[in-house]
């Protein structure tokens, strides 16, 4: 490792100097350099306060101390995820603020997708990084003008560390997603960059969805982005993350972190439609803590990636808190999408519903992995879990692993799972009415995911449908 260390020191003195002269220039670290020195460089580049550096370093130590998760039944194969390979990938995350400079540098499948989605040239430029900063400024300003006076904050996470240190210090990876949660949460805590910070003061309702659409792509090339949402008592917000166009990734690990605080009587909906490039390992930790009578809603569409492990979770901490999950996963050839939901009922009269849909095709593999925990004393709580899997062919697989840990007897628990192949009879019925084979299958899938699309704003619903159509035509990737 010593030569790597030498290289890093060289990086520190020379390349970083270059970086400060010219933002577009990058600094480099070598493989195997995921050490304290690297973390210090990142933190210093961001002009972070000492406490954030300390948190990063603590997370790094936890990351090195924890084993890779390998013992889950049927989990995706992570042997290709070489931790030693990760470090060079920090570089674009930290320094190429605008993402790639050239549209032509995007991978073919991503470019094709943009083309087929009919995304116009200007937007392509924005999504590929060129000019995104400008676009995102506009978005920010509109948001700010409208909500600033009510005390709403919506900004970049790096900026929040500088501008709102008290809020961040209190909530960032403390009680919600501590780095000790899992190995990739620890990794995230060490090298996180970018993401969104949303703060809604007491009693304020933000009527329009808060969208991190352009911004995700400008800053965002951030593959370790952190999202922190704080909804104070009685407030309400709908946050939509990511864009339905695919996230650009030249590197192969995405490990985001999302923390949501739902205050008493507050209501937060977190919606995301994501489509990752097919060399990506998508390993995230997303969690909400919900106070008394608060409501948390997760709506997510997971597409793309080589392997995804994602289980948005909610801790129903206060009496009468409610959680709703709606998730959809699509796995094509060579893809393993392992998603689900976790809910902890830690107070009486809490309520949760989980609705999970998965589609697998051409040998793709989907898995619903869920956990519902009802603590002793959480009486009169109820949960309902429904998972449906749809498969296109005999090569594709789908598993359902719903774990239920019920420690309280006065509760209402329901679970229902269906697994089915797209029926020849269904396709034939639609064909006999005039639809061709592809259109018939698309109609069946569109109907299957309808519960998701009806929860999304129309433009996201349309694009989700369109993305699935493209996947089904096999024209992606």
């Amino acid at each position, binding site marked *: 490792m010593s030569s790597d260390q030498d290289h890093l020191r060289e990086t520190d003195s020379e390349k970083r100097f270059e970086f400060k002269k010219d933002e577009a220039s990058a600094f480099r670290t070598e493989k195997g350099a995921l050490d304290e020195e690297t973390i210090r460089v990142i933190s210093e580049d961001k002009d972070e306060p000492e406490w954030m550096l300390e948190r990063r370093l603590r997370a790094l130590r936890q990351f090195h101390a924890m084993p890779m998760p390998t013992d889950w039944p049927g989990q995706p194969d992570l042997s290709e995820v070489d931790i030693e390979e990760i470090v060079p990938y920090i570089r674009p995350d930290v320094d190429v603020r605008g993402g790639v400079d050239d549209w032509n540098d995007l991978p073919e499948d991503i470019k094709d997708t943009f083309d087929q989605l009919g995304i116009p040239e200007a937007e392509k430029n924005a999504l590929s990084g060129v000019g995104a900063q400008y676009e995102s400024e506009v978005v920010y300003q509109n948001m700010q003008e409208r909500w600033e006076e009510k005390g709403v904050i919506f900004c970049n996470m790096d900026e929040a560390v500088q501008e709102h240190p008290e809020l961040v210090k209190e909530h960032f990876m403390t009680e919600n997603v501590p780095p000790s949660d899992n190995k990739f949460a620890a990794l995230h805590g060490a090298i996180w960059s970018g993401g969104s910070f949303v703060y809604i003061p007491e009693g304020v309702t933000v009527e329009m969805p808060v969208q991190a659409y352009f911004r995700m792509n400008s800053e965002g090339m951030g593959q370790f982005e952190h999202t922190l949402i704080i909804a104070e008592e009685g407030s309400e917000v709908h946050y939509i993350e990511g864009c339905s166009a695919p996230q650009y990734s030249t590197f192969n690990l995405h490990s985001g972190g999302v923390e949501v605080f739902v205050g008493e009587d507050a209501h937060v909906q977190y919606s995301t439609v994501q489509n990752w490039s097919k060399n990506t390992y998508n390993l995230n930790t997303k969690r909400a803590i919900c106070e008394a009578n608060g409501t948390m809603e997760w709506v997510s569409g997971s597409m793309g990636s080589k392997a995804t492990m994602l289980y948005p979770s909610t801790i129903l901490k206060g009496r009468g808190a409610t959680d709703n999950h709606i998730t959809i996963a699509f796995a094509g050839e060579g893809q393993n999408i392992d998603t689900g939901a976790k809910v902890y009922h830690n107070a009486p009269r809490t309520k949760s519903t989980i609705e999970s849909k998965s589609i697998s095709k051409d040998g793709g593999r989907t898995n619903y992995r869920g956990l519902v925990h009802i603590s002793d004393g959480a009486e009169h709580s109820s949960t309902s879990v429904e998972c449906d899997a749809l498969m296109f062919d005999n090569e594709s697989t789908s598993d359902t692993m719903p774990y239920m840990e019920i420690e309280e007897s006065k509760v209402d628990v329901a679970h229902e799972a269906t697994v089915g192949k797209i*029926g*020849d*009879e*269904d396709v*034939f*019925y*639609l*064909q*006999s*009415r*005039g*639809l*061709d*084979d592809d*259109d*018939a299958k698309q*109609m*069946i899938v*569109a*109907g*299957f*995911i*309808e*519960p998701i699309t009806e929860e999304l704003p129309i433009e996201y619903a349309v694009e989700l449908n369109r993305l699935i159509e493209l996947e089904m035509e096999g024209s992606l990737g």
Partner: protein
Amino acid sequence: MARLQLKNLHAKVAEGGEKILDGVDLEVSSGEIHALMGPNGSGKSTTAKVIAGHPAYEVTEGEVLVHLDEDEFEGMTIPEEKRIWNLLDLEPNERAAVGVFLGFQYPVEIEGVTMVNFLRTALNAKLEERDDLFEEGEEAETEEEAEDSGYDTSPMEGNADEGDVGVAEFQELMAEKMDQLDMDTTFAQRYLNAGFSGGEKKQNEVLQAAILEPSIAVLDEIDSGLDIDRLQDVSKGINALRDEQGAGILQITHYQRILDYVEPDHVHVMLDGKIATSGGPELAERLENEGYDWVREEAYETA
């Protein structure tokens, strides 16, 4: 005027299964009602499915032809060389486009797809496929394009690229057809057959035929599982298909009952995979009274 012609049709269950059809000969023309009767397992439903192109069956011999007139489809002149189609060469959706409709005995349920969305998509898909198959002349196309541009001007009509029939136009058409069949207007927004009663499903099959306007409709046991009120509604719909749209009907049934309301011009009895005997409406009455044994005896005597 269209004519469906089954010639010496042999079929078996696909992938090495048992033989079911053993030389079926049958002709149905527009404006006629034919009843196809016979005991269970005689091959009636298989005949219907083979006509529509069900993948579970493999045709080993014979032909299924559709003969069309030059003015078979409104607004389209069919050239001489495109007036005869062998359905066995066509995909199921292409068979729909040349004017054949299959009413299912057990219609499938599809969640999340509303009736109105499904039927408009189907109608437009059929019209588009029809254009492709018949390759309309330059002139006709221009005429249609002119019509499309009209829809462009009204957002309610939907865009021209969403097909020939826009949203508002289709809703009107569907409401009119549902009214004729005494169907509740809430049907339009329900998911395709999902949670429909047996009777509602059958009524829905007739509604679909009314909207898709086939030249030949093959209705597979459309009368099974219906109470008397619903039987009358469904029968009314079938008669309208013939009387108002001029469709030819091949009515597959076990019972005389529906034939009291939908009077057939011809009755055929199927036995062991072929037509054993044919006749007029009186044949159905005799079957009702005497069963199929006499047909079997006669058939084997002549054989």
